[in-house]
Structure formats: C-alpha cells, structure tokens
C-alpha cells in the first residue's frame, strides 16, 4: 500500500509576493489598532471591539496565507462548522451562568456557605453577600412569572 510512483506534480499557481506583503502590512496596522483601541474605554463593548478586530485579522490570515479563498469551498465549510460548534459550546454555559440569577431565588447567588456566612445570612436577611459578577436582585424581580401557586 505504501508503494510510491514518481510522477509530475500538479502545476502550481503562485500568487504575487506583493499580495502577501500587503496582507502582512495590514495585519501589522490592525495590531497597532488593537493596542490603540484598548487604551479607550467603550464600556461593555471593549471586548466586542477587540474580538472584531482579532476576527478580521484571523480572517485575513485564513483567507490569504492559508489560501482558503483560493482552495475548495469545502475547506471553508469545515472551518465554519468548527467555529459554529465553538460558538454553541460558548453559548450554553454562558447562558446558564447568566440565567441562574434571573430565575433562581436569591440564595442561588450567594458565596459558598460557611458558618460565618450562614449566621450572617440569618441575622441580616436583607443584605446578603453576592457572588461576584452578579447584580443584587430587586425584591420584585425575584418572583419568576410562572404558573400561580396558592
């Protein structure tokens, strides 16, 4: 099965060297842009902007350096499939974390319990220490609109 015959290979279709240099320079410019953008505060959008630029850079590398633009379309399909799966893999845990607080009762958000915290909770039912990253829920938000009971 491993026998090899020496034959003429497929005819290469080289692209211009200047295309590659052009892509490279664009990438450098975008890197500088990334750093510059990071100095400004866009609030919630910081990470979005950073990721948008990074994605554009990655697309340039994949499209030109990795020849995705010139190769069989199926290779792009393969790449996109993996990216879609990655997005799903990211989506559900984040959705889980973010909606635990909405639907759960207040206690779900609290720090790991130890005796100190427990006693504190019992004594101060209104000001409970929250798990970092979660908002203090408003009293009326705690009631999830579900089928009425009692």
């Amino acid at each position: 099965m491993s026998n090899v015959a020496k034959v003429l290979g497929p005819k290469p279709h080289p692209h211009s060297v200047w295309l590659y240099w052009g892509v490279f320079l664009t990438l450098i410019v975008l890197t500088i842009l990334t750093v510059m953008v990071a100095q400004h505060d866009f609030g919630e959008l910081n990470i979005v902007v950073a990721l948008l630029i990074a994605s554009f850079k990655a697309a340039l590398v994949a499209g030109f350096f990795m020849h995705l633009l010139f190769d069989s379309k199926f290779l792009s399909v393969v790449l996109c499939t993996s990216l879609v799966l990655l997005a799903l893999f990211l989506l559900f845990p984040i959705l889980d974390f973010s909606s635990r607080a909405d639907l759960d009762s207040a206690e779900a958000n609290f720090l790991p319990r130890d005796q100190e915290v427990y006693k504190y909770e019992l004594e101060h039912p209104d000001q409970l220490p929250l798990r970092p990253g979660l908002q203090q829920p408003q009293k009326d938000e705690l009631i999830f609109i579900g089928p009425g009971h009692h």
Partner: protein
Amino acid sequence: MENLNELLKMIVPREWLFSVMPLPSSTHANDLDLLYWFLIITCGILFLLVVVPLFLIVVRYRRKTVHQRAESQKDHNFWMESLWTFLPFVYLAILFMWGFLQYLGMYVAPHDALELRVIGQKWQWSVDYPKEEISVAGVGATIAIPINRPVRLVMSSQDVIHSFFIPNMRVKQDVVPGRYTTLWFEPNQLGEFPVLCAEYCGDLHSNMLAKVQVMTDDAYKNWVEEQKSQNQNVPLPELGEKLYTKLGCVACHSTDGSIKLAPSFKGIYGKMEELTSGASMKIDDNYIRNKLLTPTKHTAKGYPQIMPSFQGRVSERDISGIVEFIKSLSGKQAIEGG
C-alpha cells in the same frame, strides 16, 4: 388537569396507577404521575406500532425457498414519509410543553413555604430549621415536615456533589458545593418516606440515607419542642451515643472493635495512636475535640483522611457528650485519661 387525572383513574385501575411509581405523596407526584402514565400509554402504543407490524411482516414475507424474491422494489412513498416525520413532531411538541410547564411549577416555590437548610456531606444529610432553631443530621436522620404545607429546601454541599432525592415526592436536585440549589414540595400523605442520595459521592454513597416524616401540624409542633428540649436533659454519655448515630460517626467508627473506614471506638480512649505523620499521640479529651473540629490536622496511620469537620455543628455540650461516650466504651481505663 384534575379532570384528566380522574379520567386516567377510570382507565387505569388505581392499584396499577401506584404500582409503577412509588406511592405519590406530594402535590407534584399527582401531576407528574398523570404525565408519566400518558407517556407509558402513548409510548406503549408507539412501541406496538413498530413491533406488531415488524412481527407480521417477518412472518408474512419470510423467505420460504431460496429462489424467493422480494415482491416489490418500491423505495419511496412521499405521504408515508411525511407522515412519520410530522406526527412524531407534533407528539413530541406536546410532551415538551407539558413537561416544561410542569417543571416550572416544580421549580418556583410558593412564598409561604416552610424553609429548611440542607447540607450534604460525605455521607449524610444535615437539615437546619432556621426559624425553629433546631437541626437534625446523620445517617437515617428523620426530617419532620407538617402535612399540606409547602416546604422549600435550600441546599449546599460541604465537599462533592450530592443529590437530594425523595422518590415519593418526585423531587430530586443536585446539591452542589460552592452554591445553593433549591427544591420544594407539598406533602399530602402522612408517613415516612426515604431520602436518597442520587449523585455518586464516594465509598458510602448508597448509605447516605435519611427519611422524611410527614406529620400533622400538632405532631410537628410537639416534635419541634421535643427536639429543642432533648439535648438539654439527657446525661452526657447518652447524648454522645445519640450523636454517634445522628452525626454519622457510625458510618466509619464501630463500637465493637471491628474496623470500618476508621479506628473503632472500642477501647480506644487513652491509647497511643500512630499518625500518618509518623508521630504518635495519646487519645484524650483534647485529641477527640481537635479531631471533631479540625479533622485534617491528624490522621491515624493506615486510614484514609475522610473525616469531615463538625465545626459549628456541635455545641460544647455535644463535644463533652461524645468524649464521655467514647470513654464509656473503654471501660475503667477512662479515669486516668480524664
């Protein structure tokens, strides 16, 4: 729902109704059993829809001679194929909605629920009644609950994931370290019902049992009073003996000299114990106290380090009780150690 339930009871005899699932003892159970029976009946019909034709086809078209050919080579039928794509879709959509709405009902607790705090710990449950200021714990602990009143459990774990499961109430919820999870139910049957751990948690996972005792309001009040007064009056060694089962010491320490996962209590008081660190320590009151509160400090040689801390869960009187109980198992030698 109620009407459907009645209808179902007419179709399925009452004793059958309760024979597949354990005796329904909560409001959830009544709703859920209806859906469960709907599933059993419809899935049973679907099963027959596959298996009966399969059987008939195999009998009818069985190859009887080696020259027998297929009677037809037809390989498609648009309407049939659409039918068995679309109908399951409708059926499954109904099931989804039904199951989801029921789940929401099981998830959102009413505001007037009696709130209990549950801690899972290898391999026992402990339950605090914050308002009543009592707690029960240990292997086989009895969790008393008044009938016809919603109960909400706020649960967390000290070590690994456990799962609080009461088959009769049809509730189950993982108890996760580092956060709280909740479940609620409203018991509507008097009696004792087992509580099991449904998430594998180590050696004695299958021993992590407790029971829920559903009682009338009056009986519940009496029980609470009894619990409150209980520990104050009993003599120390007797209190220790009670705690020995209640706190779950019994799971690992025997009192008859047999070796479980930890040294037996029999005759241990006053002995020199060799530790994993290589040093030896005399087992006296202080050793027992430290072992209860900070068990990771010293571990007897040849045994796994699995003992949980009882810090905050035992009072000073409890500790004295346990010490006296262990002393009593070592007979007269105890006197010199004290």
